[in-house]
C-alpha cells in the first residue's frame, strides 16, 4: 500500500520507512510537520497515513490535529497516530472520527510484525488502540465492579478487543482457537451487558466507552456515531 508518513525526527522517519519498505509498502512522502502532511496527502492520495503527534511548528499536538482534520476531510482515509506518550483523550478524539484509526505508542514499532499487523488492520478499516491505553482503563483503582465477574482469560480477551483486534487476531495473539474466542466474547458481552456489535470498530467503541464510563448506557456507547466520552478538544 502507499503511505504518507509525518515525523519530525529524521532518524525515526528513516527507521519507519525502512520497516515499511521491508514489508513491501511504499512510502510516497515522508514529511516533518503538520502543514506538509496535509499537502502531501492532497498531492499523493495515499492509502494510509502514519503521523507523529508532536511536530513543528508548535511542538504540541499538531500531528493529532492534522490527523483529525484529515479524518474529517477524507473520512475513508485510514490514519495511524504514533505518540511518544499515552494520552487517553487523544485516543478518544480519534475513535470519535469513525473506523480506520489507530493510536499507538512509538515504541510498538519495535515489535515489527505486530506493528505491521496493526497498521494493516487500520488500513483495512479496523481499529488499533495501544495496549497501554487499555491497561490504564483497566487499572484496578478505576475498574468497574462488573469486571470482577470475568475470568482471567476473559479479561485478556477483553483487553485484546479494546485494542481493536478481530476475533482471528485475538485467537492468534492468545494462541487459542477462534471458536474459543467467539465463546469468550459472547460471555464477556453478556456479563457486561453490552450488545453484540456488528463490526470490530463498534465493538472497540463499546468496550472502551464501557471502560471509561461503566455507568453509561451500553446502547448509546455503541451508537454508530458515538459521542465520545469527552467532547473533542479539536473540533474539525
Amino acid at each position: 500500500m502507499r503511505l504518507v508518513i509525518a515525523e519530525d525526527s529524521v532518524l525515526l522517519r528513516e527507521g519507519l520507512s525502512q520497516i515499511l519498505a521491508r514489508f513491501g509498502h511504499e512510502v510516497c512522502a515522508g514529511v516533518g510537520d503538520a502543514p506538509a502532511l496535509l499537502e502531501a496527502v492532497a498531492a499523493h492520495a495515499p492509502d494510509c497515513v502514519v503521523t507523529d503527534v508532536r511536530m513543528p511548528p508548535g511542538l504540541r499536538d499538531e500531528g493529532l490535529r492534522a490527523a483529525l482534520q484529515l479524518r474529517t476531510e477524507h473520512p475513508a482515509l485510514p490514519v495511524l497516530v504514533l505518540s511518544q506518550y499515552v494520552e487517553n483523550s487523544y485516543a478518544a478524539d480519534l475513535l470519535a472520527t469513525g473506523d480506520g484509526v489507530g493510536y499507538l505508542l512509538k515504541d510498538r514499532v519495535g515489535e515489527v510484525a505486530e506493528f505491521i499487523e496493526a497498521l494493516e488492520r487500520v488500513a483495512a478499516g479496523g481499529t488499533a488502540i495501544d495496549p497501554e491505553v487499555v491497561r490504564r482503563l483497566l487499572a484496578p483503582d478505576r475498574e468497574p465492579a462488573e469486571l470482577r465477574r470475568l475470568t482471567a482469560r476473559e479479561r485478556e480477551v477483553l483487553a485484546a478487543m479494546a485494542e481493536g483486534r478481530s476475533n482471528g487476531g485475538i485467537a492468534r495473539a492468545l494462541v487459542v482457537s477462534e471458536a474459543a474466542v467467539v465463546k469468550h466474547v459472547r460471555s464477556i458481552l453478556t456479563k457486561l451487558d453490552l450488545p453484540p456489535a456488528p463490526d470490530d470498530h463498534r465493538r472497540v467503541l463499546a468496550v472502551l466507552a464501557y471502560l471509561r464510563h461503566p455507568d453509561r448506557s451500553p446502547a448509546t456507547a455503541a451508537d454508530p456515531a458515538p459521542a465520545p466520552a469527552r467532547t473533542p478538544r479539536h473540533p474539525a
Partner: protein
Amino acid sequence: MTSDNTTTKPSARAAGGTGEELPGGARRESAVGGVWQALASGPAGFLGSLWPVRAMGYLLAGGVLGLGWLFLAVGLVVVGILLLPTGVGVIALLCVPASAAGLAGLERRRLRWLDPREAPSPHQNGYAPGEDEAGGNAARRALRRLWRRARTPATWVEFGFALPNAVLSVLDLLVVVLGLGLVASQPFALLTVLGGDQVMYGEGIVLTEPVQVLPWLLLTPVFAALACYTFAGLAGMRAALARAALVGPRREKELDARLTEVTASRARLADAFEVERRRIERDLHDGAQQRLTGLIMTLGLAKLDADPALVAKAQDEARAVLAELRDLVHGIQPSVLTDRGLGAALEALAERSPVPVRVDERLGSLRPAEALEIAAYFAASEALTNVAKHSGAAHATVTVRGGRTLTVEVRDDGRGGADPERGTGLTGLADRLAVHGGRLRLSSPPGGPTVVRMELPWADGAQGAGAREDGSTTGLTEPPREGRREIHAAGDC
C-alpha cells in the same frame, strides 16, 4: 575571701562571692545602657562617671560635623550653580544629597558613643539589579552611584535631617561653650583678683581680696553639676533625634522595597526554572527518547532479519543515546563539581570551551557550601558561554578566590559592550547569585575587555568541614567518599 565572711550558709557565701562583683557589673551595665540610664542612675553614679565628658564630646563633634557639612553643602550648591552650564555642576549638585547621606552615616556611627543599640543604615546595600552592573569608566560609575544615591528616598530624609541639624549644631556649640564658661568663671575670678585686678558681681558688689572670692568658689561645683546634666540631657535628646530621623521606622519602608525586589527576583527565578524544566523536557524528548525509539525500531528489524549490519547500527544508536544522556545529566549537575569541587569543574568547563580559557583557582583545601559551588559554577558557565557566543575573544581567564567572599571573575579580551539590559542572561545570572546574597558586577566598555565578577558571601561546605574533621579525629565519623578524600589530600600537600 571566704574565711572572714560572716554569713554561714555555703550557698549564701557563694552568693556573696558573686555579689562582690555586682557594683562594678552594675556600673558597666549602665554604661551599656546608654546616656539616659546613666542620668537615671543617681547623682553620685552619674557625676562620678565619664558620661558628662562623653556627652560634651558628642555635642562638640556633632557641632563641628553639622556646621562643616553646612559649609560643604553651601559650597557645593554655589559651585554647582556656577558650573551648571559646563555639566560639572550637575556632579556638584548630585554630591549635595550624597554628602548628607555621608553625614548621616557618621551620625549613625556616632550614636554608639551614647546609645549602645544598633543603628543600621536605612540604605539598601544588597543587590540592585541593573544598577550594580556598572559598565564604563570610573567616572561614569561614580556618577551612576551618585545618581542612585540621589534617587533613594532615605537620602532625602537624611538631607532633611542635615539642614535643621546644622542650626541645632550651632546651639550645641553655644551650650557647650556657655557651660564650660560657667564652670570656669569662679576660678577665673579668683585668678583675676590674685593678679591684682578687681571683679564685679552685678551692681555694687566689687571684690578685691582673694578671701572675698573664696565663698563664691563654692558655686563652681554647682555650676559643674548643672553643666554635666545639661550636656548629658542635650546630648541624649540630640541622639534620640538623630536615631528617630536616621535609623527610625523608614527602615521598614526600605525593607518593603527590598521585599518587592526579592519578589520580582523570585518571579524571574521561577520563570527561569520553568524555562529550564521545559528545556530538559525538550532535550529528553527530541534527543534520548527519539534515539531510543529509533534503536527499538532497528532492533525490531534486526530481530526479523538477523542482520549483523543492523545489530551494529543498533549498537551505534545505543552509544549515541548514552552520550546524549551523559551530556544532559552533565548540564543538570556535573558530577566533577560534586566530587572534586569548583576548581576541577571549572577546569573541565574550560577544556570544553571553544575559546581558550585559563583557570586560576586558589581555594586550596577550602570548599564552599555545595549551593554556592553550584551557583558559582553555573554563573561561570553562563559567563563563558557568553564569551564564546558574543565576545569574539581570543582568550579568557577564570579567577576563583575564597575568603570572606567567594569570588569568581571571568575576564576576556573580546570586543566588550555587553549590556545587561539587552539580554536576560546577565539578569538571570544576577538573580541566581542574589539567592545566596551574592551579586554580579559587570564591566564591559566598548572595545573590551569584559570582566564579569561574581561575589558570594562565603559559607563553609558541610562536606569540607566533615572531611577536615575526619583527618584529625579517630575515624568515628563516616569516611569521606573517594573524590572528597582526594581533594583534601591534594589540599594538604
